[in-house]
C-alpha cells in the first residue's frame, strides 16, 4: 500500500492504494465518496464517469495511481457552495431525467463535460455524446430534455418520442 494524493472536488486528499486500486475504489472506499456508482465494472455503462483534469473518464477503468496529482471532480462536487443543486442536477430533477437514479451520477458528469466543451448542443449532439452512458429506466428522452434545459435552451420544443 502507498499513499496516493490528488485533488478531489477542490480539496487535496490522500488515501492508501495498491497498484490495482481503481480510481472508483479510491473514491468510494478510500474517501467515502459513494456518489460515483459502479454499474458494469467493464467500461460499458458510464455510471462511474468522473472528471479528471476536466475530462470525462470512466473511473472503473483507470488506476488511482495513474492519476495521482490530478484534479478530480465527482458528483459530490457538482452542488453549489450552499449545498443547493447545481444547474445540471437541478435540470435533471425538473425534467424527470432520472427514475431509480443509478445511472444519474455518470449522466450528470458526462452532461457537464459536454456543456463545458459545447455550451449549446443540439438534441442530436446530446444523444451522441451520451452514447457511453446507459440508463435502464428513463428511455433517455427526459435526460436529453434536462441537458437542453441546463444549456438554457427550450426543452419543451423537443419532439415527443
Amino acid at each position, binding site marked *: 500500500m502507498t499513499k496516493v494524493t490528488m485533488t478531489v472536488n477542490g480539496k487535496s486528499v490522500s488515501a492508501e492504494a*495498491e*497498484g*490495482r486500486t*481503481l480510481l472508483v475504489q479510491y473514491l468510494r472506499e478510500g474517501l467515502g465518496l459513494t456518489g460515483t456508482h459502479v454499474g458494469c*465494472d*467493464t*467500461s460499458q455503462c*458510464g455510471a462511474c*464517469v468522473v472528471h*479528471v483534469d476536466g*475530462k*470525462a*473518464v*470512466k473511473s*472503473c*477503468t*483507470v*488506476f488511482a*495511481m*495513474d492519476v495521482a496529482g490530478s484534479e478530480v471532480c465527482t458528483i459530490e462536487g457538482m452542488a453549489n457552495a450552499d449545498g443547493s443543486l447545481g444547474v445540471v442536477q437541478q435540470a435533471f430533477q425538473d425534467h424527470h431525467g432520472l427514475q431509480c437514479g443509478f445511472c444519474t451520477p455518470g449522466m450528470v458528469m*458526462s452532461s457537464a*463535460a*459536454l456543456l463545458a466543451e459545447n455550451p449549446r448542443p443540439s438534441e442530436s449532439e446530446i444523444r451522441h*455524446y451520451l*452514447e*457511453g*452512458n446507459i440508463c435502464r429506466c428513463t428511455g433517455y428522452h427526459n435526460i436529453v430534455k434536462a441537458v437542453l434545459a441546463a444549456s438554457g435552451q427550450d426543452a419543451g420544443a423537443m419532439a415527443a418520442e
Partner: protein
Amino acid sequence: MHNFDFVKPSSIADAVAALSSEGAQALSGGQTLLPTMKQRLAAPDVLVSLTGIAEMQGVCTGEGGLHIGAATPHAVVARDAAAHYPALAALAGGIGDPAVRNRGTIGGSVANNDPAACYPAAVLASGATVVTPHRRIAADDYFQGMFSTALDEGEFITQVIFPIPHKAAYVKFNQPASRFALTAVFVAQFSDGVRVAVTGASNNGVFRWTEAEAALSSDFSAKAISDLTVAADDMISDLHGSAAYRAHLVKVLTGRAVTAAR
C-alpha cells in the same frame, strides 16, 4: 485482479529500462488492458504507464507526414489532426464514446491490433510507419494477424507517422453494442495509387483489398469496384453478422468511402 507494481516513467529511456524486466507490461489508456486484467486474461508483475512521457504526446507535422505520439488520446487526435488529415481525425472521433476517447490512445490501439479496431485500418491504408525506441516498422510488415504484430517482447510504440493522402475517408458500420467496427473501410488516394484497408471483417485482422486498390488507382469512383466480389471464406462470422454479410459490407463500405473521400 492480481496486484502488480506500478511505475510511471517520464522519459522513453526510462520506459525502455522498465519494460525490459521480466513480467513488465505497457499501460496506456487502459481501456482494453484494464478489462483484460479484471478477467485475469493478463496478470503483469509490473505495469509501466506510458502516459506521463511528454515526448510521446501530441500531434505535429514533420518529415514523412503527420507525427502522432503513441500516448496521444483519441480525443486529442480528433481535435488536433482535423486540419491536417480530416479522415484520420474523424476516425479517432468515432471510436467508442467520449470517456473512452479521453483515455484510450493510438499506441494502445495499434499495439493491441484488435480485429475490429479502427486505427489499424488508418495505419495500413495510409502506409504509415510505426516507430519504436530502436526501429521503424512499415505498416505492411507490422500487422501479423488478429492481436498479433511485429513488436518484440518489451518493445513499445513511441510514435506513428502518417503520410497524408490527397483524399481519404473512413466509413464504419458500427456494432451497436460494443461501438467497435462490425466492418469498416479506410480508403486513401496518393499520387502513386490508392490503398484500401478493411477492419472488423477478417479472421486474420486488418487487411488490404488489393483488387479494389488496382481498380481505384485507375478510376477513383465507386463504379470502378462494382464488378469486384469479395470472398467470404476468411471472414468473421458471429451473432452480429455472417461471413457473407461482412464480405458484402466490405464492398458497400468501400464504395461509400470512395464517394465520401476528401
